[in-house]
């Protein structure tokens, strides 16, 4: 095994362990912290694929910003294992079935692909480097890029409007 393979397996185990613990842990705070572990493991995978920009942005945006907000909300609501409401048996059953269906579909889709038996080429290619990424984004995909930025802007304005309304009411 080369060092990239060892890293790949280590990171995969970490990611899967974290993902299982997100679902399995009782306290929502622990779930969030394990989700952060998952993001870090996935960023490690990006680095193995030589996509450093994507790896760092994944950490900045997901682990650094979005998860902080999650943590914020959970801390303010003070959700604990004790205060967790009893879940409906039927709901749990429905969740199990729908989750299982999704799992089956994914497995079927992946096993059908022609490249399933091939391992991903690690450390090669430089598509993920920031220079090439910028070239692709601003030359070949300008229109989708700009449209998505407009979408972001409108979401931002929407958030501000919602925030202001609540202030006036109180």
């Amino acid at each position, binding site marked *: *095994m080369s060092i990239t393979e060892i890293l790949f397996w280590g990171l995969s185990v970490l990611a899967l362990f974290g993902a299982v613990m997100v679902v399995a842990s009782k306290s929502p*705070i622990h779930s969030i912290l394990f989700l952060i572990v998952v993001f870090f493991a996935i960023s490690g995978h990006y680095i193995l694929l030589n996509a450093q920009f994507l790896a*760092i942005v994944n950490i*900045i945006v997901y682990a*650094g910003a979005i998860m*902080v907000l999650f*943590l914020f909300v959970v*801390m*303010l609501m003070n959700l604990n294992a004790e205060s967790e409401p009893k879940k409906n048996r039927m709901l749990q059953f429905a969740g199990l079935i729908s989750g299982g269906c999704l799992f089956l579909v994914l497995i079927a889709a992946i096993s059908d692909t022609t490249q399933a038996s091939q391992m991903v080429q690690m450390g090669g290619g430089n598509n993920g480097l920031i220079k090439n990424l910028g070239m692709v984004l601003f030359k070949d995909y300008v229109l989708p890029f700009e449209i998505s930025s407009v979408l972001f802007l409108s979401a931002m304005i929407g958030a501000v409007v919602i925030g202001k309304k609540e202030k006036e009411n109180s």
Partner: protein
Amino acid sequence: MLLAIDLALIIEKLVLIVIVVMASLVIAMYATYGERKIAAVLQDRRGPNRAGPFGILQPVADGLKLFFKEEIIPSFSSKALFILGPSLAMLTAIMTSAVVPWGDQVHFFGRDISLQIADVNVGILYVFAVVSMGVYGIMIGSWASNNKFSLISGLRAASQIISYELAMGLSLIALLMVTGTLSLKEMVLEQQTGYWNIVYQPLGFLIFLICAFAECNRTPFDLSEAENELVGGYHVEYSSMKLGFYLFSEYINMFVSSVIMATLFFGGYDIPFLNEANYDQNWMALFGVLALMAKVVGFIFLFMWVRWTIPRFRYDQLMHLGWRILIPLALFNMLITGALVLLKQNNWHF
């Protein structure tokens, strides 16, 4: 062969990592001494002067005191997270130093050794990512303490850091437009041949400086440690070396952000008015490191000077400054810089 990696490279990097971590710890240790001395001078006192000549052993005595204090983990806290909090604060404080170019290459034992642990081509984004992770140490610790005061303080610290991160990122974008690279090493090389970035980005530097104060939780933005309203801040429940870690990580953060500011805006290890290529490589690398350290000491002094001069902001003033003044200013700076860069590419024709 199992690991196809140069063994000498591993040893070289390990030695470098140990040196950098030890140096950050020692400098942070003496920053506490410096802070007390500067506070003393500004308040017309003598400061610590009992342990050793000029009180030079004071940090050691402080450290020993913290180590020998009784360690209390409150029974109502969540234990694992209570321990994780200060560890994370310390870890994220030290991690930033991995991408900083501490000096130029040195030539030892027939090898060119770069005085930088990792020359990542997204260096500045890495710094930004680690800074944004810095919130977790405080948030986790404050929540795990299960104390209202520390929770309030943790929330204050987190919202402050998130708010100021935005302005910091926007001021960095303007800098990146000028330099055209994300690698800290290349930025230093550019500044060695041309002017320092402070010449091109004075407003950007000002915004970055203010945000650095806020990110380090230093006065005038140390709302999370406002002792007259919050008892002691997010570390009320902490004792012994865990408290020491929180206090210490603040000084390491201060050191690292001084290094980053010196690297980004003040030429890093560049010695002003001197062409390094004319002299012996190893000596120039050594003097380069010393030049960087001199700049860093200057910044640390600025941090302390401000702390003992300017009183703390009110919380609404802090948020007002961050969102209504710094972010629009940073956006304005970004637009101006973008326009000038574009004009320069067109050879100053419209």
